[in-house]
């Protein structure tokens, strides 16, 4: 078995914050990402799912070192990049890219599309054969944009087209890793399918590894090879897509899957919904033991005391004392 492209070990990101208590300031920490570990193979797509505020986005950005990790280890292509200074990160950035959720804020409104897509070449001082302009036109063509729109500005494009511009920028330097941070959740459903298929095609052609962050499970099921379910900064379950969707082991995964509507009305009528009680606990003060214990229907005494490790159950890795 070959070495993974990316190896994340016990990654943590705590954001410092403070609360006023009388005249004193109490220092607190938001535990956005609290010890996640996984490997990502070459050409693999890992779906990262979970509800809002569970640390998906922070995890993605910390892996790219856009946010400095608090603790843990990130090994990219055999190199430990955890504590690499920004200057030393620069040459590595050729190989890692990001696609954003909001296509309206991802593009500088004062730059033409051509300029936006040629920025990676300019910054990394890469000179493709035939010049940057030709390469950019080819990229635009590849993502389904008209190369004649080279001199247009972002405001002249629709959300889906803007997302294509963002994708063209991300794949420009043929990266090995792309973090796609909810790339379709801001788009219409019809456009979502197009963009997902575009990402899928590009990945197959270039052999890119993708961390696909999303909260839409059907999208994740379609595109991912493996799926990691996050809850409150921790990974609850990680498994091959088929295994996770056919046989979820963690109660939280089961609850998430039960919330997916089914296109077949008969299936939809017989669908059993598990409705979780209560709210997501605050990441400033997560519950002792298993973080899911406040909302789990299978909760036992041990769940409130001991944090479950990520262990192999069947074909999956599950962090639960009582996996199904």
């Amino acid at each position, binding site marked *: 078995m070959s070495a993974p492209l990316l190896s994340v070990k016990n990654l943590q990101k705590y954001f410092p914050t403070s609360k006023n208590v009388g005249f004193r300031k109490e220092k607190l920490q938001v535990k956005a990402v609290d010890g996640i570990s996984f490997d990502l193979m070459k050409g693999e797509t890992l779906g990262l799912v979970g509800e809002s505020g569970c640390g998906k986005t922070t995890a993605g*950005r910390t892996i*790219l070192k*856009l946010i400095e990790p608090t603790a843990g280890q990130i090994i990219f292509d055999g190199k430990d990049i955890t504590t690499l200074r920004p200057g030393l*990160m*620069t*040459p590595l*950035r*050729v190989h*890692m*890219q*990001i696609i*954003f*959720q*909001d296509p309206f*804020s*991802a*593009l*500088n*409104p*004062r*730059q*033409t599309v051509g300029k936006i897509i040629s*920025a*990676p070449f300019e*910054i*990394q001082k890469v000179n493709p054969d035939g010049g940057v302009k030709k390469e950019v036109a080819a990229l635009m063509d590849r993502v389904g944009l008209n190369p*004649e*729109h080279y*001199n*247009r*500005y972002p*405001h*002249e494009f629709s959300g889906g087209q803007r997302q294509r511009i*963002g994708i063209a*920028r991300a794949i420009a330097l043929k990266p090995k890793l792309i973090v796609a941070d909810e790339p379709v959740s801001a788009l219409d459903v019809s456009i979502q399918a197009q963009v997902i298929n575009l990402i899928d095609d590009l990945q197959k052609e270039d052999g890119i590894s993708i961390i696909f962050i999303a909260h839409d499970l059907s999208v994740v099921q379609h595109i991912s090879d493996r799926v990691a379910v996050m809850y409150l900064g921790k990974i609850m379950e990680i498994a091959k897509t088929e295994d996770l969707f056919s046989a979820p082991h963690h109660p939280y995964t089961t609850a998430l899957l039960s919330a997916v509507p089914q296109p077949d009305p008969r299936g939809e009528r017989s669908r059993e919904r598990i409705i979780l009680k209560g709210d997501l606990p605050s990441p400033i003060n997560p519950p002792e033991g298993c973080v899911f214990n406040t909302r789990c229907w299978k909760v036992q005494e041990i769940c409130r005391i001991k944090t479950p490790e990520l262990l192999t159950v069947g074909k999956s890795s599950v962090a639960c004392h009582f996996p199904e």
Partner: protein
Amino acid sequence: MALAKKLGVATKAGEITSRSPRQIAWMRFKRNKVGMVAAWVSIIILMLSLFAPLVCKVLGINPDELNLDLIDSSGIPTLPNGGISLEHPLGLTPGIGRDLLANLLYGSRISFTVAILTTSMTLFIGLIVGIVGGYFRGRIDDYLGRFTDFLLAFPAFFMIVALSDPMVARIQDIGLAQGNSARIVFLIFFLSFFGWPGFSRLVRSQVLSLRERDFVTAAQAMGASRRRIIFKELMPNLWAPVIVVVSLSLPGYLAAEAVFSFLGIGIQAPATTWGILLDNSRRFVTVYPNFFLIVAGSLVLVVLAFNLVGDALRDALDPRSER
């Protein structure tokens, strides 16, 4: 073939309709009639001021010539309406009988110099402080922020009044400038010193919101240097507030110069500025209101025109703003 031609035409047309954000703002500005009139008035006044010697030569007027034959013994022009005639389109200044239009034109040059230089200095300092504070945040931002607070709370007006004489003497001692030039240097220096905090606040708030936008993160993810992020990603997005501030603070400093000259701590006679003309007109306002009305009216016209241009620019650059 016909289809290809059709397509070709279509793409051509598409190219024409493509507009940059600047072009869109310009289109919106052109639609604002008040703004366009104000812009023309401002440009004409600026041009008249810039080419004052030429204008005076064409009109055959001279700012320094004393028309003693046209004023009586108490200094009032003998002709009706303050001596308005073909030779002297706006009449004469009382007391010494100089041509008023020529004096207004030449006086505006000093006023505009002060206003333009002060605005540029304000912009320069405000941009640097605002960008540094907003982009780097943390402790630097704290120190800069407290310093701007201090300056904003400072009674700048009294400071300028009190420090005028000693500071001008100091400037002359150093040999930086002499006489009225020293006073101009003093005015520009102090007006900008107390003028930049407001602008730096505006820039800082813009930078704070811009730096969290995804396109800045994208630049970081591509490995862009801070320099590139500041100059290529942030700065182009700051032009809108900068342009608006320029057009709104220019008339402000124009008026400020007039106020300080009026109070006698700015430029002094025999040089002319609008403030000095106003000061002179004050003494004759009961016997000779023309003089006062013309000078004050000119000042109002200029300040109003520039302000209206500023308003129109703001509306054109930020269509979502209320008002």
